[in-house]
């Protein structure tokens, strides 16, 4: 199994490297934008999967962290453009190496606050309280007239990075791909770390873990913060890619879509969110191009997948390979 995974990952990376040439080859350059979105959503979904799949916490408000990450980039850009200091002492920035860490930090702070409160509950209450906090943030940004209110912030130019020409679509794609590779390498380390083992233990049997001396609350909160940071990172890249940040990014249906990606790919599997994000975005693009009523079909597909399959796409692949091996 192990060498097989390594081979597949190498093949996938090669494929991703040649995506810009392939899209040019088939004469559909718009597919490159789709690939960018898939990579970004894969990171957001993988972040959600970290708490949902590995930690057993069903967060229905993860779009909030995605949005906070995007807004961090947007607000820093707005202050960079206007030259005014944020809160009177923070200068704006258009440097990706500043805005991305800032987005991760800010979304981490939000995740810490929301997680610390939400994790005092469990079950359906946890689902609903995470949703509630996300809604609060959504309405907060809608009301935030200084940063565009409902319309959000326009980012006139993508952040700068190491002198690259970020207006070039292909360059931007490789930048996003590079960040995605780093992201998933980091995630791989976390999942296989001491902390990752504890987190999976808590997901399997919280009572047992407490009886071993682990305080579940602290570990879950830590996972929640890391996950929020990951989602914020993805959101920051999305703001750079779309060149805007808007409240829509943290609408509750976006949280639902992230959950759909996770379950499409397979809950608690490492590569699942990538498949899930790809499947969702391709399905959406394909169906939307085919019929105006694509949500009907999406709903039907989703319903069938939830009711009829176990383990999503990743589970399906695992079963196929196991049968083949």
């Amino acid at each position: 199994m192990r060498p097989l995974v390594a081979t597949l990952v190498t093949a996938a990376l090669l494929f991703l490297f040649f995506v810009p040439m392939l899209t040019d080859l088939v004469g559909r350059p718009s597919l490159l934008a789709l690939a960018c979105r898939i990579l970004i959503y894969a990171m957001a979904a993988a972040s959600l999967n970290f708490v949902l799949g590995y930690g057993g916490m069903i967060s229905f408000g993860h779009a909030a962290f995605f949005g906070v990450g995007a807004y961090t980039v947007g607000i820093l850009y707005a202050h960079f453009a206007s030259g005014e200091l944020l809160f009177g002492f923070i200068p704006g920035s258009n440097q990706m190496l500043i805005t991305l860490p800032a987005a991760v930090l800010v979304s981490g702070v939000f995740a810490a606050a929301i997680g610390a409160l939400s994790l005092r509950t469990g079950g359906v209450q946890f689902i609903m309280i995470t949703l509630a906090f996300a809604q609060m943030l959504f309405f907060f940004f809608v009301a935030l007239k200084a940063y565009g209110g409902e319309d959000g912030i326009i980012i006139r130019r993508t952040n700068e990075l190491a002198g690259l020409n970020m207006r070039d679509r292909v360059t931007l794609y490789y930048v996003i791909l590079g960040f995605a590779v780093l992201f998933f390498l980091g995630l791989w380390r976390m999942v296989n770390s001491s902390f990752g083992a504890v987190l999976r233990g808590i997901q399997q049997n919280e009572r047992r873990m407490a009886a071993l001396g682990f305080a579940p609350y602290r570990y879950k909160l830590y996972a929640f913060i890391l996950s929020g940071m990951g989602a914020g990172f993805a959101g920051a890249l999305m703001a750079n890619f779309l060149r805007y940040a808007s409240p829509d990014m943290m609408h509750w249906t976006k949280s639902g879509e992230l959950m759909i990606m996770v379950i499409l790919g397979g809950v608690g599997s490492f590569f699942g969110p990538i498949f899930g994000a790809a499947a969702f975005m391709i399905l959406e693009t394909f169906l939307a191009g085919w019929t105006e009523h694509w949500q009907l079909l999406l709903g039907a597909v989703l319903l069938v997948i939830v009711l009829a399959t176990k383990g999503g796409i990743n589970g399906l692949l695992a079963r196929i390979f196991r049968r083949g091996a």
Partner: protein
Amino acid sequence: MILIAEQLLNGLQYGVMLFLLAAGLTLIFGIMGVINLAHGALYMVGAYAGTWVALQTGSFWAGLPAALIAAAVTGFVIETLVIRRLYARDHLDQVLATFALILIFNELITIGFGRQPVFTSLPAAFSGSVELLPGLPYPTYRLLIIATGLAVAGGLYILINRTRIGMLVRAGATNREMVRALGVDIRLLYTIVFGLGALLAGLAGYMAGPISAVQVGMGEQILLATFVVVVVGGVGSIKGAFVAGIALGVADTMLRAFLPGMLRQVMNASEADALGIGIASMGIYFLMALVLLVRPRGLFAAGG
């Protein structure tokens, strides 16, 4: 003073509306353990079906049974085809499957009725207003909604506390295993509860038609507020749904009515309005977070 009284009544009217939806939702969750995001779809189906019949026949009252029947039948179909398969699943599957139902119903309604809101008129007998207090005229239709909501609350109280079905419902909300162990036809009980919930949702949707737009997505707007009511009231508790529904309905309405005005005292008008509405929209979520932090299982949590 008059203004406050009027907004209180508006809040009460919104509150009973929330209660009509929350009553079904809280029972469905309490008894079957299913998170049903598609409850808002039943509200929408009731509104569309009733309004359509009312427009065809020209009679508000002809639309009422149509709304109830359509919502109940839809509820029955959903329960049989989808929800029934979710009883044994975890919350995640439930959230996603019913989320899928929302997408499906929204598109079905769009295909059938288009994206434009459908407008409907008040029944003739309730199109005026009465002067409740000197200087406080109030639309009779809104009073009708309040009366209907209170009547349903009373009816549910009797149903739950005085009948055999009610006994099973109470037992089910407290201890699901026990009802199973009693040898009751649990399938039938589930279907009845789901049907009842759907009926109330359809009623709420139809009643809401004349005072708010009948449009695709109307279900989700109120669904989230309804979930807040259910969670604040305590999952499985009709009493909790009633108390929390009224309280949150009033709180939400008052915030929306008065907060922008209060903020205008300290900042310029357009910013005050935006901020006021923003904070008011956050209000019920904020209250929910507050309640859950003090009582993680809600105000009137039923059983263990």
